[in-house]
């Protein structure tokens, strides 16, 4: 993007990272995916590791993540991103490898891969976008859908008795000794974005330690799936998702590294 000339005396204090392509993103207005992409690439830019970073895109709305994040990327089968990342990291152990996955991808069909990848302590970063719904396929129930929440496949609201409980997979994998750094973040307001960026930075740096898996859950929105405006969706998220999925660190390296 060409930037217009600006009165002298001004300097750029924020521009999109070079590692984000200029391709317009296909996400719905207000969808959190775009922010997370950008933050990831900001860190890649800052750490100057574009040439060493390999990403894995999931099947979900972010299936086209590789169109936006300007690093080498592979597109994995639904739920298998961490297996694909394992394959990459094992043969290229000095690269920075990350997966980017939705809640259907990571916490439903990919549960086995998620648990075992973390249990092996694969030295990768798993970025997990929890928007409580299957965005891409049109708003079906996800494992993380809240009780009572209506989706196209829980038209009367999710009921625990038949559909089970919201799955806090991040809490589960925190228990695994292979997990090095586990944190839950959001992107609904500027400071949340700042915190996410710190977490991503840490996670990439930890990857050099080869001491285990870094896992960042981002509690996010899906205005389309939730049938809300972006603002409504963020508000609803704060009021309903955050109590179930409280933000903050679940595990930091000091706890496991001595």
């Amino acid at each position, binding site marked *: 993007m060409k930037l217009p000339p600006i009165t002298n005396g001004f300097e750029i204090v924020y521009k999109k990272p070079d590692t984000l392509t200029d391709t317009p993103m296909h996400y719905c207005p207000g969808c959190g995916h775009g922010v997370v992409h950008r933050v990831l690439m900001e860190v890649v830019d800052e750490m100057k590791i574009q*040439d060493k*970073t*390999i990403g894995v895109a999931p099947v979900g709305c972010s*299936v086209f993540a590789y169109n936006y994040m300007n*690093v*080498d990327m592979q597109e994995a089968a639904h739920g*298998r991103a961490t297996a694909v990342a394992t394959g*990459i990291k094992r*043969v290229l152990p000095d690269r920075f490898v990350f997966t980017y996955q939705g809640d259907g991808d990571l916490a439903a069909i990919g549960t086995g891969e998620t648990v075992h990848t973390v249990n092996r302590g694969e030295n990768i970063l798993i970025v997990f976008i929890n928007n409580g719904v299957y965005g891409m396929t049109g708003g079906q129930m996800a494992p993380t859908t809240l009780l009572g929440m209506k989706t196209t496949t829980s038209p009367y609201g999710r009921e625990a008795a038949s559909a089970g409980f919201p799955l806090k997979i991040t809490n589960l994998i925190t228990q695994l000794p292979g997990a090095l750094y586990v944190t839950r973040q959001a992107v609904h307001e500027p400071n949340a974005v700042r915190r996410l960026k710190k977490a991503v930075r840490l996670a990439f740096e930890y990857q050099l330690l080869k001491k285990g898996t870094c896992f960042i859950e981002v509690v996010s929105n899906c205005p389309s799936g939730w049938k809300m405006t972006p603002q409504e969706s963020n508000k609803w998220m704060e009021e309903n998702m955050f109590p179930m999925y409280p933000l903050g660190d679940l595990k930091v390296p000091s706890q496991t590294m001595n």
Partner: protein
Amino acid sequence: MEHTPGTSEIRLMKGNEALAEAAIRAGLQAYFGYPITPQSEVLEYLAVHMPKRGGVVLQAESELAAINMVFGAAGAGARVMTSSSGPGISLMQEGISYMASAELPCLIVNVQRGGPGLGTIQPSQGDYFQATKGGGHGDYHMIVLAPSSVQEMADFVFESFRLADKYLTPVMILSDGALGQMMEKVALPPEGSLPFIEKPWATTGKKPGQKRRIITSLFMQPEEMEEVNLRLQTKYRLIEKQEVRYEALETDDAEIVLVAFGLAARICEKALTLAREKGFKVGLLRPISLYPFPSKVFASLATNAEMFLVVEMNAGQMVEDVKLAVEGKRPVHFKGRMGGMIPSPEEILSEIETVIENEQVNT
């Protein structure tokens, strides 16, 4: 085959172990797999020997995970393989379809056992269709090689990696429990005898100034997806032209040609001897590449031979490809055993006698 330069070492080995050792010598960089009888020796052998010789061996949590690890490693440019049997191979179908679509090279070994279902662990050839017609979704093929000896279990590993890299496609070695478990002498080429090729498309990290690499099988626009399919089909036509492999035994004067692959071909070879002793003019055609199927050779055989007898350890699968190749010009008979049963040479001999008799009655 031109892939075994240098002097080779001769050993007495199980088929599964010979295959594993050959893989190491062929420069295997990563193996991902999951135990299942009758192929667990591949993983076990590699677990012992790969670490010493450099390279990754990982027992995955499932075959599903394994094939997707193979995807990742192949996409990252590694020489990579997995192995399994029946149920485990079925679980890999989605992944195989993905790899075919993303055009990633790898070796998948199926040491067949009797099915369907959990079945039995005894040798079988029941996965022919799955291997050759595409058990996964969409239009794709793998190159499928069928060894019939421990030596070929080893040789075809080299061949498979070479073909996989050349055509950017998954290659399958379609073996069976007997070939996996039996021991024979095997000549093993030295390590490093299969060169590595450049893989500029591999995701190894985007170097400054270079175009980055994307490995995907998603092509949302049908026009684009059809393009990809056309490219694949063009590749398959090329493979069908260039990579047909078969072995013909005593077919020149044969009035009846046995057609069999893998273990069944070995047994047919014995039956052929027995039949020749009895004065029957019997030949044997052994397709080695099941895909591409050696269809063309049947045209010429059909001019001399009076009939074909296809022998398989299944309910009749390759027989369809034989019929398609013969195009109704000669009768094509079938003899099969199923679910882990192995036909004996004598049984085949008596089938030869039966079909000859019947044809004489018919004509």
